[in-house]
């Protein structure tokens, strides 16, 4: 059974989600409130991974962060190993690949918060950061949770980028989706069935859990429709 692949996929999805909540919220907050005229350009860049095939991202990451490039050399100096074929490399790739799945729902939810509550908070002397955490975020949280769940689910199902920059190394870069590909290539259809079934069950359980929790709270989770 591919339990190490399952653990690796869960770890990658969990960390990608955590990184994107931390990095994505400020970016989404800026996108939701800025009057900057070039905002559409930033939005287009954020949405790029939705359009580009994973091979393009994987190729650019290999070319741009390979051991023979300056950024790749920096990566190696900091982490002690080259970017490709490492878990840290996968994490960087996954964060980029899942960026729109976090930032778009985040921004939609934050933009949907009634300005009057935010302004009332400001009027009462609460700092901008305090207002964000105590007023805006609580009001926008279903959308934020939706973004986090989408990011998690999307990373769990990631294949092309992982295949290109990961290199199918057991325990390090062989995620569930790669393990299934590997089994099929090795004509181990029985093992492929078991792993695919496991991924199906885990994915269903994650989504059912979230929808169930949402149902208990009477909220609607994945029903965001942009802004």
């Amino acid at each position, binding site marked *: 059974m591919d339990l190490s692949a399952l653990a690796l996929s869960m*770890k990658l999805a*969990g*960390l990608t*989600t*955590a990184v994107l*909540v931390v990095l994505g919220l400020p970016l989404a907050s800026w996108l939701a409130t800025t009057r900057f005229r070039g905002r559409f350009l930033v939005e287009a860049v954020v949405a790029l991974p939705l359009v580009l095939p994973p091979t393009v991202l994987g190729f650019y990451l*290999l070319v741009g962060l*390979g*051991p023979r490039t300056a950024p790749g050399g920096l990566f190696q100096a900091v982490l002690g*190993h*080259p970017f*490709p*074929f*490492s*878990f840290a490399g996968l994490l960087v790739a996954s964060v980029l690949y899942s960026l729109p799945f976090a930032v778009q729902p985040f921004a939609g939810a934050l933009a949907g918060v009634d300005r009057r509550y935010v302004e009332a908070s400001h009027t*009462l*002397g*609460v700092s901008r950061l*305090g207002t964000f955490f*105590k007023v805006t*975020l*609580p009001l926008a*949280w279903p959308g*934020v*949770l939706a973004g*986090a769940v989408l990011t998690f689910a999307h990373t769990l199902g990631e294949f092309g980028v992982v295949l290109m920059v990961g*290199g*199918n*190394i*057991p*325990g*390090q870069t*062989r995620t569930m989706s790669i393990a299934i590909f*590997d089994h*099929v*290539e*090795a*004509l*181990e*259809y029985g093992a492929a069935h078991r792993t695919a079934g496991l991924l199906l069950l885990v994915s269903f359980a994650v989504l059912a859990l979230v929808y169930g929790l949402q149902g208990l709270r009477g909220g609607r989770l994945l029903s965001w429709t942009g802004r």
Partner: protein
Amino acid sequence: MKPRRARACPNAPLLAGLAALVAVLLPTPAPAQGAAPRRISVAAAASVRPALEELARAFEAARPGVEVAISTGASGALFAQIQNGAPFDLFLSADREYPARIVEAGLAAPADERVYAHGKLVAWLPAGSPLDLERRGLAALADPAVRRIAIANPAVAPFGRATERALEAAGVLAAVKGKLVLGTSVGQAAQFATTGAADVAFLPLSLAAGEGNPLAGGRIVPVPEPLYPKLEQSGVVLARAREPALARDLLSFVTGAQGREILLRHGHGLP
């Protein structure tokens, strides 16, 4: 005027959950020192996989506390990964060319390269296929009844190149060029044929003769040896190996008496 904290913050569980997630996941689970097995990472051509899995088990049994991790693919794809810094200890190629280029690039010492097997090219046909390769030879592939021929991608797979050479030598390459479908490795070429997507696949005997895989039960027709160049397969211990001694040990095991017996049983030729 301090804002009151008592207001239930609905996103608190989310944030707490994420924090817990980060706390659990962040310390990269470095295998606990001491009890952890010594791990050796092998990149191997897809054609060697069935034999290598048995070789690895035998090696692990003979060296307690050692764990062999196997990554397989087309030799050329693995070669590209090694060039880009993939952390493998040992590379078992389906030819001699890629290991030679690794030595040339300074990624391995010349003394660490050794031929371990010879590859044998065969055509694999699903049971009941009317194609008479046995009597008519490769010329039968030109029949309109043959619609798709699965081969490994010649750009990265030595067996794909050997297949092209054989088709050329048999004088049918031009006639069948439009029927060729390229698998990323011999593994995918085999998959095309076992699922019925292709009428015939050109595979290493070591894969086609596998027991207990979907290829079992098909017909195997050897490609006559003069039609394709001799497929010497060599292994090489990489200079960057984290376990160089263990990697040399494994390569010696593969080329040793027990290794040769296993390779032979899986349809490899021996040097």
